[in-house]
């Protein structure tokens, strides 16, 4: 895949915020607007049923439920790739799993196919998420521990990448220190950032650097770790490696058992060298030292804020939101659920004049959100071939929109979450915007298809799922509750109704009678076509407007 350099237009004037709100628990209105805001940020799109379900809860109950971890996946990635004469060289039959089948040797063709299978399966996890932030938070951590599997297609097999996903997921709502520790010792990461060759005789600084720069304390002006801290951390991490089956091993003989001295940024900590089987315990000492800095908590809180609220973090947001949030994070012992709960229940998060409708949908949010919100019909879960075809279509779409899972272009993450001043605006440029419109047009008209499996919006099914499709005013407002976070003016809504649903007329009853004619005789092609056509035009139009890309 080509990797265009990030180009920020830098055209949007950023204004310094003058907010008085903060992290106090929100006690205001709990209407469709607030529920949709919360759901758009924590799930991939808002389904009608979800909106109604959470309207029946309090704000606090809703956030608590969304922050509840969901069970681990009940399926595993399958051999979706034995076709066109290709067979798995290790003997895995079509539609059997290739996970833990013995031989994982990194044959690059097989590995590419297995990684595609893994990516598709992961897409499936997101597409079929429950009423929980779990999958979106897993994606957030994926961006945090960003990897591009193609760079190591010849020397890291697919199975460790599957384990990598499981580690992200298992810890997504858990303890961040534990997540960092598990990731540090994961075979995928050990191989990806060269920890597996980090030995006392030939230290490799790569992971020791990224651990600090990217995963924990970050690179803000207040993050004053030094090159000697990188070297010392690398020495702490010596000996952790993988065996020839890509299982984790600790090679005592490769571990540097001398003391490691850190800079004043870390309080001039000395990590006492340990030898033999106790060598790995130095990692706990290292993480305790790192997480003892306020900067670690702040860095992660900024990342969370950027991903779930907005990217603009000025001095005011820093002092009113980030700093107290970091305090919560640290005092909870880096409990991710605790910090998410405070943020998502806060006055600031529900300050609709500031925090709503300002997040440009990521390609995954855009694509999965569309499919989930319209409840696009998916294959029967038992039909593996069809399911993988749909997931592959989604994968290809998001990849061309510059967000392919397991193919993150930089170790710092997708450009939109770290690059300069443009941030999320980097998702949208003249190429990707055109592609997004082409995708929505395709979905609302002919649909996409792969291996004969269709993926297409049924505007009639969507309208039917709303409470009052026979009333053109309610049909539009209830559709907008799901599809839009940017409010449209009454004039615009009236114009949409008259131009599209009423065909230039002004009597609401004409739509109502057309809808009733359809529901009375759904198989009549003219009655059906009449409402189908107008709904198709309405939804196509709504998805073609810039407003659709904000959540």
């Amino acid at each position, binding site marked *: 895949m080509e990797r265009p350099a990030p180009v920020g*237009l830098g*055209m*949007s004037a*950023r204004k310094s915020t003058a907010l008085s709100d903060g992290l106090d628990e929100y006690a205001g209105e709990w209407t469709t607007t607030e529920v949709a805001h919360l759901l758009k940020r924590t799930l991939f799109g808002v389904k009608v049923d979800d909106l109604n379900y959470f309207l029946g809860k309090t704000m606090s109950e809703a956030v608590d439920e969304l922050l509840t971890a969901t069970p681990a996946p009940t399926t595993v990635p399958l051999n979706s790739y034995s076709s*066109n004469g290709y067979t798995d060289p290790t003997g895995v039959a079509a539609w059997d799993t290739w996970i833990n089948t013995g031989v994982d040797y990194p044959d690059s063709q097989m590995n590419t196919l297995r990684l595609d299978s893994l990516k598709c399966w992961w897409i499936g996890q997101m597409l079929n998420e429950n009423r929980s932030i779990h999958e979106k938070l897993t994606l957030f951590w994926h961006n945090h521990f960003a990897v591009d599997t193609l760079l190591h297609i010849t020397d890291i097999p697919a199975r460790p990448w599957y384990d990598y996903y499981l580690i992200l997921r298992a810890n997504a709502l858990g303890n961040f220190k534990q997540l960092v520790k598990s990731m540090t010792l994961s075979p995928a990461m050990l191989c990806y950032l060269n920890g597996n060759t980090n030995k006392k005789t030939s230290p490799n600084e790569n992971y020791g650097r990224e651990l600090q720069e990217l995963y924990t304390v970050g690179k803000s002006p207040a993050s004053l770790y030094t090159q000697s801290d990188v070297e010392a951390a690398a020495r702490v991490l010596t000996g952790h490696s993988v065996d020839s089956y890509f299982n984790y091993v600790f090679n005592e003989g490769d571990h540097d058992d001398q003391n490691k001295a850190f800079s004043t940024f870390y309080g001039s900590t000395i990590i006492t060298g340990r030898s033999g089987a106790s060598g790995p315990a130095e990692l706990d000492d290292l993480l305790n030292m790192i997480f003892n800095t306020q900067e670690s908590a702040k860095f992660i809180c900024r990342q969370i804020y950027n991903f779930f609220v907005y990217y*603009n973090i000025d001095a005011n947001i820093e002092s009113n939101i980030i700093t107290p949030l970091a305090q919560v994070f640290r005092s909870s012992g880096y409990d991710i659920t605790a910090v998410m709960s405070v943020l998502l229940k806060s006055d600031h998060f529900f300050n609709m*004049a*500031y925090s709503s*409708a*300002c*997040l*440009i949908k990521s390609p995954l949010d855009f694509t999965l959100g569309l499919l989930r919100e319209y409840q696009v019909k998916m294959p029967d879960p038992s039909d593996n071939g069809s399911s993988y075809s749909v997931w*592959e*279509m989604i994968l*290809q779409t998001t990849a*061309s929109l510059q967000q392919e899972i397991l193919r993150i272009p930089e170790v710092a993450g997708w450009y939109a979450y770290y690059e300069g001043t443009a941030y*999320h*605006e980097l998702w*949208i440029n*003249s190429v990707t*915007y*055109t*592609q997004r*419109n082409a*995708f929505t*047009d*395709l979905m609302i*008209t*002919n649909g*996409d*298809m*792969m*291996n004969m499996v269709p993926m297409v919006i049924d505007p009639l099914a969507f309208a039917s799922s709303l409470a009052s499709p026979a009333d053109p005013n309610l049909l539009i407002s209830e559709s907008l509750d799901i599809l839009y976070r*940017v409010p*449209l003016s009454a004039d615009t809504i009236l*114009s*949409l109704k*008259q*131009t599209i649903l009423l*065909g*230039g*007329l*002004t009597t609401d009853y*004409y739509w109502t*009678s057309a809808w009733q004619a359809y529901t009375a005789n759904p198989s009549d*092609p*003219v*009655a*059906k*076509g*009449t*409402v189908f056509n*107008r709904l198709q*035009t309405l939804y196509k*139009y709504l998805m073609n*407007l*810039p*407003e659709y*890309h*904000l959540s």
Partner: protein
Amino acid sequence: MKRRQFLRNVIPASAIFPSLVNGFTVKAFGAGGFFESLYGAADNDHVLVVIQLSGGNDGLNTVVPLVNYGEYFGLRQNIAIPENKVLPLAGYSKSGLHPVMTGMQQMYNSEELAILYSVGYPEPNESHFPSTDIWLTGADEDQYLTTGWTGRFLSTTYENFPVGYPNATMPDPLAIQIGSVLSECFMGPGGFTAMAVPMDIDFYNLINATTDPVPNSPMGTELTYIRTVARQTNKYADLIVSAAAKAGSQSAYPANNDLAAQLKTVSKLISGGLKTKVYMVSMGGFDTHGGQVQAGNTITGNHANSLKQVSDAISAFQADINQLGLGKRVIGMTFSEFGRRIMSNGSAGTDHGAAQPIFVFGQPVMKGVLGNPPDLPSTLDSSSTLPMQYDFRSVYGTILRDWFCVDPTDITTMLYKNYQYLPIIESSACTVEQPPSTLGDKLIRNDPNPFVDSTTITFKTAGGNTLIQIFDVSGKLIGVPVSANYAAGEYTVVFYSGALATGVYYARLQNGSTQQVRTMIKVPE
């Protein structure tokens, strides 16, 4: 009565009705032939302006019958136009125009207007939406088509659209809808063939007709950003803006007349040099169930106001087009989804009806009244509607053949059947011989075409998931001969039509965000 020549059959019968087999011309699709010299909508500079009057226009009060005025008056006394107020037409005494339509009366008298009586379709549908769809798509009463008649014309003429467009031959939008939402008449088998342009051609509003103002907030910042990108992505935006700026000096249009404002924009774009073939404008307010006229003064009221807007707008537009020197390039037509009942109702209004008179205007139009004032026997009841004299698709077909100079064999693939051609357009309109152009990048073709049993589809893919779907004219998916990952290159696949009926089929290629549609014709052995 001297306009009898208008009804003369000026075209040889054999040309009007090419030999048909199951509705499809056998002569079709080969090289050579009588109409070869007429070929080429893509090459001439003709423009059509379609004016949609939404709601169902009351034809009997628009073109008022005089030859049987007594019957007319008897059937709708509470709304009838007084006989002495009806505007006469020069040289034609059977009917006249509503008293407010002075502008169009003058156009008729200066040979810029044709009136067609009782245009409709068999088995008329009296509901707004289905009948609107029928008019816009060219469907039969019991048929639902997913493409519009203009969309089929444009996507057949501008081969391979949208891949490879804009290009040197067609640098401009194929069609323009004034407004914000595209009419389904512009839907082609490969997607919309038109661009929506708001009345006031504003640089930033051009793309997003819906441009609610943004608040000073993060949402406002991001929305402004995306709107800016959206505008940059519209490859036609700059052309439209610069055409509007280049337009010649326009003559006056009536104020407070929305239709006039739309037509003024159309004139501006034509004058500014756009090669766009079809413009569509629209106006509502014709659904006159009640209060169609003011009690006691039947030449005033809602319908009179609407007709005055129509007549004032069209006549101002025609005058402007004439003074801009564009008179030979532009014709227009009006239509509504239906006419109204013959008898008025008790609310000083009329209910939904069937056939209606339509207007075709412009210098190249043959002045005259086509057809006869409807019979109005006193035995009619309140549910009686006007029977059709002309199928609306005859009007479309005639415009395609005699104005856009489309080969009649191609018209069959655009309208799906053969319809009678009507003498509406001056016969000199299509005399310039120009070779057909191959336009755009051809990604999918089939041979032979037409075919009897099977045809070989050749397609180009840029690699990745590649899909070819075969649809019938109602949008029903017939088959999927290709659906797999391909390496970039050119491939062929044979499509066997089996027991499929003869007719038009669309082969739709999709590869990434690229799509292109090929029209394939199945003919009998």
